[in-house]
């Protein structure tokens, strides 16, 4: 079975800075939802930017069956959908429709296919009603969902979300979580929002100072209070992990089967 992400000894150093990634080894299988946890400056965003070749580090990295390098960038960006932390960085076109169509048009699809994908993607995040509005008129929660639609329209095999619940009020966060739970994609979610990770992901990886320090079932990792504290992470006071009823994950089984 092929995997979606296969990183071996991945290293990266920002010019003039210390090493941001110090040898990452990570495999993500089809259908998995992985929470990438860690304090600020741990290298989460740096790692995320390697997944679609925005940064090119040393070591080996294969994503969606493609070896990451200058020659595979075009195909890579069609296969890996990255949703950035600030939706204002992601939504730059004058209307929501044009923004969601931006990726599919860059892929060279014809206009009828682009319109179909635009509507499907907006339908999936329940934002079809804002299709002709400019992004700046939307609330933060709406912008975040439209930002997700902009990459869903490219039908990527891997969805990467950077801090998806940052700056959202509880209701917008809940709506976002409901939307994410319906999306059938392999997902990597970088976040500090541990309850979100517990609800959405079955696996958690902790990154600290550019290294992976923990990797296992999400609930086991989050139940290890000492491990969390050692890496500046903590669940909200009184949060009961056992209270989160995980839904059956037939979805993942279907995707795994498809790619087996």
């Amino acid at each position, binding site marked *: 079975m092929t995997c979606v992400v296969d990183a071996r000894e991945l290293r990266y150093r920002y010019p003039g800075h210390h090493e941001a990634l110090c040898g990452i080894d990570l495999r993500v299988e089809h259908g998995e939802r992985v929470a990438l946890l860690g304090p600020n400056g741990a290298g989460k965003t740096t790692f995320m930017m390697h997944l679609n070749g925005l940064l090119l580090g040393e070591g080996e990295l294969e994503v969606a069956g493609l070896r990451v390098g200058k020659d595979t960038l075009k195909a890579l960006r069609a296969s890996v959908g990255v949703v950035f932390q600030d939706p204002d960085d992601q939504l730059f076109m004058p209307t929501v429709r044009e923004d969601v*169509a931006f990726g599919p048009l860059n892929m060279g699809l014809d206009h009828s296919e682009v319109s179909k994908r635009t509507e499907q993607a907006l339908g999936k995040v329940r934002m079809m009603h804002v299709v002709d509005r400019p992004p700046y008129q939307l609330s933060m929660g709406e912008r975040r969902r439209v930002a997700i639609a902009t990459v869903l329209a490219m039908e990527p095999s891997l969805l990467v979300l950077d801090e998806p619940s940052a700056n959202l009020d509880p209701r917008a966060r809940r709506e976002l979580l409901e939307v994410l739970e319906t999306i059938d994609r392999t997902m990597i979610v970088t976040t500090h929002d541990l309850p979100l990770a517990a609800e959405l992901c079955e696996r958690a990886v902790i990154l600290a100072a550019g290294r992976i320090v923990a990797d296992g079932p999400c609930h086991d990792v989050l139940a290890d209070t000492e491990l969390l504290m050692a890496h500046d992470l903590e669940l909200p006071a009184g949060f009961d992990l056992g209270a989160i009823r995980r839904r059956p994950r037939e979805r993942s089984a279907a995707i795994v089967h498809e790619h087996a």
Partner: protein
Amino acid sequence: MSGLCNHSLELTGLAGAPDSRAHHLDPRAKIVGLLSITIVAVSAPLEFWPVYAVCLAVLGAYAAVARVRPRDVWRRVRVVLPLVLVVGALVPFVRKGGAAYDLGLLTAHAAGLEVCLAVSAKAIIGTLSAALLGMTTTFPAVLRGLEALRVPRLFVLIAAFMYRYLFVIVEEMGRMRAALVSRGYNPRNALQAGPMGRMATAMFLRTFSRGERVYHAMLARGYDGTMPQLVPLSFGRVDAGFIAAVLLVIVPLRLIEVAP
């Protein structure tokens, strides 16, 4: 969205009856038609003032077709017009020639007065044209029209980004201003304007790094240097008719140089 943003940018967007014939014209027809009016007016010297009158009449007819209320027109032109008119009003006191009128401390001259009248008439016509274009055409449509008229893509792209991020920057400025005021900053004279300069520097640095993040988000969705276009424009007979009608009324008048 902050109140400040709504307040400062409420004068953008359509006005009048969105289903009017003027609103439905192809943006290229409106850009060419209204720009021709401005060019003809600006190129006409004061002694051919009937040209100004006809230009104003054409603009009035266009506004009537678009069912734009005079109040809406006034609310928009009053933002720009006073600045231009103030400059025009200074000319009679600076430019010498012709009869002199003693006004106590200052002396106005006839030659300067003529320049003042010509500048004011041209400014009014130019501002009205631009305001009417903005009231009958959405900004994205204006951008598409400019692109179709072969305006260099880089300029159109810069205009599109300025429009998109204007709202984000205004919000950011509002927040920074609120932060200054809430720490007791209340400048009484120019010497206390230092923090405003530092605020401008911070704004520059923030917008610079945002530019880089937006570019990354564009690359992540397959951007390769050319902006894809979603909705092709359609230029019909009515559009050609509009341009022909405008040009037929104003151009001959300008060419034969009708003087009263």
